[in-house]
C-alpha cells in the first residue's frame, strides 16, 4: 500500500485529535516501521489496519466508521494536492469514472508497480452510475468514504447504495449512485461511455 495513505492517516489523527493521540496510536499499533512513513514508500496494508484498530481503541468509534471518515478526509486532501484531476468535472457521476481512466494512469506513471484497486464503472439506462470496487485489500469502507466526500463536494443529488460482493470482506463492493432528480445528464453519459 502506498505510503501516502499512511502519512495522510497520521496527518488526519494529528490534525483532529492532536499529536499525543497520534503518538499513542503509532506506539500502540507497534508496527514494523514504528510510524515512520514516506509517501513514496510502499508498506504492508496490515499496518494500516493495526493503526485503525488502535485509533478505534483511542476514540471508541467503530473501525468501519473511522475508515470511512478517513476516506472523506483523503478526498479533501486529494482535492488540495491534485486539483488537476477535478478541473472541468462537475459531478461524481462524471468524476468517479475518471479514477480508472485518468488518476490511476497518472499514479502508474510514478509507481509502475503500484497495486491499485479497480473502479469499474457503468452507466445504467436510468442514469444510475454503477461502480464496482475490487481490491486485494479490504478497504471498501475507504472507497465509500471517498465516494461520499465526492458526492458532498459536487453537491450531487444522488442516493448512494452499497452492496458488498464476493466474500463480503470488504475487498469487493458495488456502489450505485442514483440521481434523485430527473435531470437529463448528457455529460455524464459521454464521460462514462468512453
Amino acid at each position, binding site marked *: 500500500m502506498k505510503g501516502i495513505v499512511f502519512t495522510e492517516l497520521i496527518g488526519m489523527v494529528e490534525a483532529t485529535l492532536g*499529536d499525543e493521540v497520534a503518538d499513542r496510536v503509532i506506539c500502540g499499533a507497534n508496527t514494523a516501521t514504528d510510524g515512520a512513513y*514516506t509517501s*513514496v514508500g510502499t508498506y504492508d496494508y496490515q499496518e494500516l489496519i493495526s493503526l485503525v484498530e488502535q485509533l478505534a481503541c483511542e476514540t471508541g468509534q467503530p473501525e468501519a466508521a473511522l475508515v470511512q471518515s478517513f476516506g472523506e478526509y483523503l478526498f479533501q486532501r486529494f482535492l488540495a494536492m491534485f486539483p488537476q484531476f477535478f478541473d472541468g468535472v462537475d459531478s461524481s457521476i462524471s468524476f468517479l469514472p475518471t479514477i480508472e481512466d485518468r488518476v490511476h494512469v497518472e499514479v502508474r506513471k510514478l509507481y509502475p508497480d503500484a497495486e491499485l484497486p479497480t473502479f469499474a464503472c457503468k452507466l445504467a439506462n436510468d442514469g444510475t452510475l454503477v461502480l464496482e470496487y475490487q481490491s486485494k485489500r479490504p478497504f471498501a469502507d475507504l472507497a465509500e468514504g471517498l465516494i461520499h466526500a465526492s458526492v458532498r463536494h459536487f453537491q450531487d443529488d444522488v442516493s448512494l447504495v452499497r452492496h458488498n460482493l464476493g466474500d463480503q470482506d470488504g475487498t469487493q463492493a458495488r456502489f450505485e449512485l442514483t440521481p434523485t432528480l430527473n435531470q437529463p445528464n448528457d455529460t455524464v453519459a459521454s464521460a462514462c461511455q468512453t
Partner: protein
Amino acid sequence: MSNLGLLRRKLEREKNARREAERLLEEKSLEVYHANQQLLELAEQNRTIIESAAEGIITYDQEGAVRSANRSALRIFGLSLINGVYLNELFELTTAASYGLLFPEESNSTVRGGSVAEFDGHLPVEIKGLRNGETFQTEVAVGRSAFGQVTLFTAVVRDLTRRKKMEARLRQSQTMESVGQLAAGIAHEINTPIQFVGNNIHFLRGAFDDIGKLLDLYDQLTSAVREGHDPAELVDEIDRQVEVADLSFLRDEFPAAIEQSLEGIDRVAVIVRAMKEFSQSPSEVESAFDVNRAIENAVAMSASVFREVAAIQTSLDESIPTVLCMGSSLNQAFLNVLTNAIEAVSNHGEPGEGRIVISTKLNNVNQAIDVCFQDNGPGIPDEIQHRIFDPFFTTKDVGQGMGQGLSLVYDVVVNKHGGAVSVTSPPLCGTTIVLSIPLKPAELPVRREHADAVGRF
C-alpha cells in the same frame, strides 16, 4: 517531558521516513540507470541492424529535411552526409503527386501507442532517385511516426538499379534467344535441301561429261559429213555412246534435277531470308513493316520445329497496310508467341494432333492490326494467366528450353508500341493470344513498367 519525548519520537520517525525516501530514490535511480542501459543497448542493437541493412533507411520531417540515414542510404544516394539534405535532392520530385508519395496521410490501420511508424497501409512506390546528378530507379516504402507535436517519416529505399539492369540484360538476351533456340532446327531445315542439291549437281556434272563426249562425236560427224568422209563408223560409235550414257534417261532426268535443285535452293533462300530479316541488328528506328510477311517468316523459321508436332495454318488478310514500327523487335515477339504455342501443343497433345492458326486482320475500332495466335494446347490455368508476362515466370524448370520470352512480347507490344496484348484461355479450349499493333506510332504514355500494368489483363 512527555512533550519532549513525543517530539523526539516524531523526529526519529521523520528522520527514518526521510532516509527511506532517500533510499527509495537511489534505488529508483539505479533501476532507471539499468533500465536505460538496457533500452540504449536495445536501441543500439536495432540501430546496428538498421545500419547494416542493405536497404537505405532515412527519416525526415514534414519539411522534407532528412533527420537520419543509415550507411546504405548514403551509398545509394552517393553522399557522405545526408542529414539536413532535402528530399528533392534525393528524388526526382517533378510533380506534386510524386512529392505526395513521400508524405502519406495517417493510415487507418491500427496504430499502437499512437506514435508508431506504420508501413502496412502504404505499399512501396517506384520513384526516381538522384545520385551524382543522374537518376536511378528506387522502390520506396514510407511510414509515418508522431512524436508529440513532431511528425517524422521513415522511408525504406531499395536501389533497383541492379535489378533493372538485370532485367534489361535479360530482355536483351531474350531478344536473341529464340533465334538461337531455333538454330538447330534451322540448320536441319537447310541441310536437307542442301544435301540433295549437292547430289543433283554431282549428277549434272556426270551427265554433262557424258553429253560432252557425245557432243565431241557429233562435232566429228558434222565435220566428216561436211568434208564428205564416210560417217558410218562415227554413227556407230555415236549410237554406242548414246546407249552407254543412256542419253534419253539423261535428257529426261536433267530438267528434273535442275528443277529439284532450284526448288531446294529456293527453300533455303526462304529460310535464310527469314533468318536475315529476323536477325537484323535491333534498331529502335521505326519503319514500314509488313506484318503478314513477318508472320510468314516466323512460320518459316520455326518450320522444322513444328512439322512433326502441329499443323500450322495462316489466314492472313492481304489487304492490311504496313505499320510504322520497330520491325525486328516485333519479329521477335511473333516468334516468341509462336514458339510458345508450338510448345503448348507439343508438350500436351498426341503427335500430329496439334493445330495452330495465325490470322491477321485490320481492327478499325482501335486503328490497329490484330495478330491472333490460336492453339489447341492445354490452355493456361486462370491462376497463372496474370503472371505469364513476368520476366522470370516459367512453368518449367530453368534449363528446359523454350517457352519463356512472353515478357519480351509484352515489352515490345505494350511498352514499345503502345499496343495491347490479350490472353484468353477458356478451360479445354487452348489459348488465344492477340497482339494488337497500332497502325501509327501512338504518343506513348510514360513508359509503363510491368508491375504497374499487370492489372490490364
